[in-house]
């Protein structure tokens, strides 16, 4: 076996005497597909405004079908709160993004000439949003948890988005400088930061675990990814012929392109391998985080609840890959059928041998493209929710257990918090999840 189990797995097998609360999920593919379909149509119809209610409905579905020891989670957030949060974020983001774009634009116009480079420069200015992402993520998690309950007791998260964002950005910088080697340290540091600020009722959560347990697996995967990338680069640079001038003429450029295309299969395989490796680590990491989480339900010695996940990472990744392939085939087949239908309809409608008014042809073409886009989007959204998101959620959630869960009875209620900017920043910067 290439990958070693992390140290935390042993802790799970040790603690057998406590009563563990299990997680079950009652949600099913067909109801969620129907829900997604109805809400995405409403979203399109309202030019996107309904999406806040769509996310809320989906979240309610998932939460209320997730049972911890026969008691379901509750979600009482509203679409209105999310819309408010989004508007709050816009009021801050629009001017910020605009001025950064203008500043970069002014600078690049004074120095660059190529319109392609100019467009690239303007896109680069949108990177100004990157430092805001962890801020948005913290606030989003804070909102979602503050609207989540179990056994009538609310969750909550203390303030700390700015500190969190600062730390996250520093860690990102460190990651950049070390080619990613500090990633496990960042994971542990940041998750510990936020987990210790999470409250269940009046009791805090805690994070017990060190990066040492993550590193063995991380290094194996990191090494494999680096090896693959290096191999590909070495193979390409070994045999690639670069055109002599910086502005190649058409023939040289085509030759260059042909070579690149020749490397296609190798690059695709490399990409797939890297994708599988990084996905594996992503799931492994999430399982590790769950295993480190504690709920300090009371101060007494037996008052700590331990979360544990016995998720099979390989099983999860395999399910992800297989389901994604099925989804792609299904959506692709649907689009192909639609395309063929549209082409045959066009043939039937075209007048025999006559030339159509070009304006009419153009508008029909545009209408057809829009229809295609919409059908593709709706199909992809509905099917991915039912075939991908729900099954994977079920897999991950039902693998979680709460050891010594009875200690939770001691937890007392906390007050309802204001919604603040809800997940507005996450919605505006688009770092949200599928629901």
């Amino acid at each position, binding site marked *: 076996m290439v990958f070693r189990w992390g140290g935390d797995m042993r802790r799970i097998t040790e603690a057998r005497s406590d009563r563990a609360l299990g997680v079950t999920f*009652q949600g099913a593919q067909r109801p969620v597909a129907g829900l997604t379909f109805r809400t*995405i149509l409403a*979203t*399109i*119809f*309202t*030019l*996107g*405004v309904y*999406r806040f209610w769509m996310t809320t409905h989906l979240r309610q579905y998932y939460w*209320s*079908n997730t049972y911890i020891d026969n*008691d*379901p989670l*509750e979600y009482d957030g*509203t679409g*209105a*709160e999310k*819309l*408010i949060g*989004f*508007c*709050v974020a*816009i*009021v801050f*983001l*629009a*001017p910020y*993004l*605009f001025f950064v774009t*203008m500043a970069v*634009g*002014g600078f690049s*116009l*004074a120095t660059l*000439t*190529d*319109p392609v480079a*100019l*467009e690239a420069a*303007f896109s680069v*200015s*949108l990177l100004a*949003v990157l430092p805001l992402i962890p801020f948005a993520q913290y606030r989003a998690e804070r909102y979602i948890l503050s609207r989540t*309950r*179990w*056994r*009538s*007791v*609310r969750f909550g998260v203390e303030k700390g988005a700015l500190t969190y964002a600062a730390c996250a950005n520093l860690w990102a910088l460190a990651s950049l400088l070390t080619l990613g080697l500090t990633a496990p340290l960042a994971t542990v540091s940041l998750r510990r930061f936020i987990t210790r600020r999470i409250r269940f*009722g009046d009791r805090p959560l805690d994070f017990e675990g060190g990066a040492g347990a993550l590193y063995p697996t991380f290094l194996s995967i990191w090494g494999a990814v680096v090896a693959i990338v290096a191999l590909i680069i070495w193979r390409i640079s070994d045999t690639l012929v670069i055109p002599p001038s910086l502005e190649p003429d058409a023939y040289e450029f085509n030759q260059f392109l042909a070579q690149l295309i020749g490397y296609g299969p190798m690059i695709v395989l490399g990409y797939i391998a890297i994708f599988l490796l990084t996905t594996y680590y992503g799931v492994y990491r999430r399982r590790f985080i769950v295993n480190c989480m504690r709920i300090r339900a009371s101060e007494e010695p037996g008052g700590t609840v331990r979360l544990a996940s016995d998720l099979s990472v390989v099983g999860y990744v395999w399910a992800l890959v297989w389901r994604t392939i099925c989804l792609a085939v299904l959506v692709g087949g649907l689009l192909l059928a639609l395309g063929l239908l549209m082409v045959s309809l066009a043939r039937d409608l075209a007048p025999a041998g006559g030339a159509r008014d070009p304006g009419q042809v153009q508008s029909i073409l545009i209408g057809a493209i829009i229809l295609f886009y*919409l059908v593709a989007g709706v199909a992809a959204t509905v099917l991915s929710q039912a075939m991908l998101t729900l099954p994977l959620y079920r897999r991950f959630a039902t693998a979680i257990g709460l050891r010594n869960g009875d200690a*939770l*009875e*001691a*937890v*007392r*209620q906390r007050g309802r918090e204001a919604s603040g900017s809800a997940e507005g920043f996450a919605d*505006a910067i*688009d770092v949200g999840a599928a629901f």
Partner: protein
Amino acid sequence: MNTEGQIAAGAGVYLDGESARAHPVHVTLTKEALLLVEARDAGREVAVWPLATLRRIDAHGAHLRLAPDHESDARLTIREMPLAAAIRTVAPALGARAPRNAKLQRKLAVWVSAAVGSVVLIVFVIAPMLADQLAEALPPEREVALGDRLAETIAEEGVALLGISAGWCRAPEGRAALEKMTERLVQVADAHVPIRVEVLGSAAPNAFALPGGRIIILDALIRQADEPAEVAGVLAHEIGHTLARDPTRNVLRSVASGAVVSYLFGDFFGGFLLVAMVDAAVDAQYSQEAERAADRMAVRLLAASEIPIAPLAGFFRKIAQEYGDGGGYLSSHPASSERQAEIEAAARPDAPTRPILTPAEWAALQRICAD
């Protein structure tokens, strides 16, 4: 134990909303309320929930989760089908929505206005202002370089977009004639950048100005013109755009605010329609003004170089007949009939004029793409 007026009874699990501790209770359903009594502790009464405000939290499978009203944190779970069914029948407003939260509605109104206002301010006021400043500040050499690259892109990729069929039209006699016409107008123009005019082969008539003084005329316009003064009029209009730095401003304004708006709104369904509408609205409001200004400048340039103005009005009349009047709030150009009227009003029939091209030169210009 039988209570009077009891409709149904059974077991349930009660959460008092103060802690996470679940209490098994005995539930009695009467016509008015649910009576909850401790199942273990010798029947101590736990709560009385009036049916009128009883609300359902959710009902999955056989479970029925209830709350006494919309505010309370307390919960009751009924897992027995008969009791759950009885409650569902008797309680009047189980699935009722929460009452409207006036405070939330006000907050919503405020923040939606703020967001819309913020975006409108940026896209319709600040972006054009800044774009104008930037365009004025841009050194001529940068403008020329930008225009050159744009011209190359158009020549290579304009086929699908504009019905451009072939590359640059560069027949020598045609180019000489075009030079002569251009020079006539440039002399009176006092441009900040060198004016260079080229012709692209195409099926549809049009002309446009790029940053840096590059002007492109689509050859169908030349072929469909009745006389040289028509082409000269269109050329004068495009020079008007160049002098006002419209092309540069256009590029800047649309890239900056377009990028921001499409980033914030464009990545979900329907969003792209919103972006397209905003784009069109901004385009329209901005360009119609610019087009009218270019028309006025064209009239001035034509008069100063002693070229007849009426043929330009005739050009717009032809356009209106061929392609419809256009105009309107979302159009990038004013109505052709309006432009025709404006120009005719400015034309002086008694103004001195000199011919622009000899008949041979005019013929050569019309054949500029034939090679």
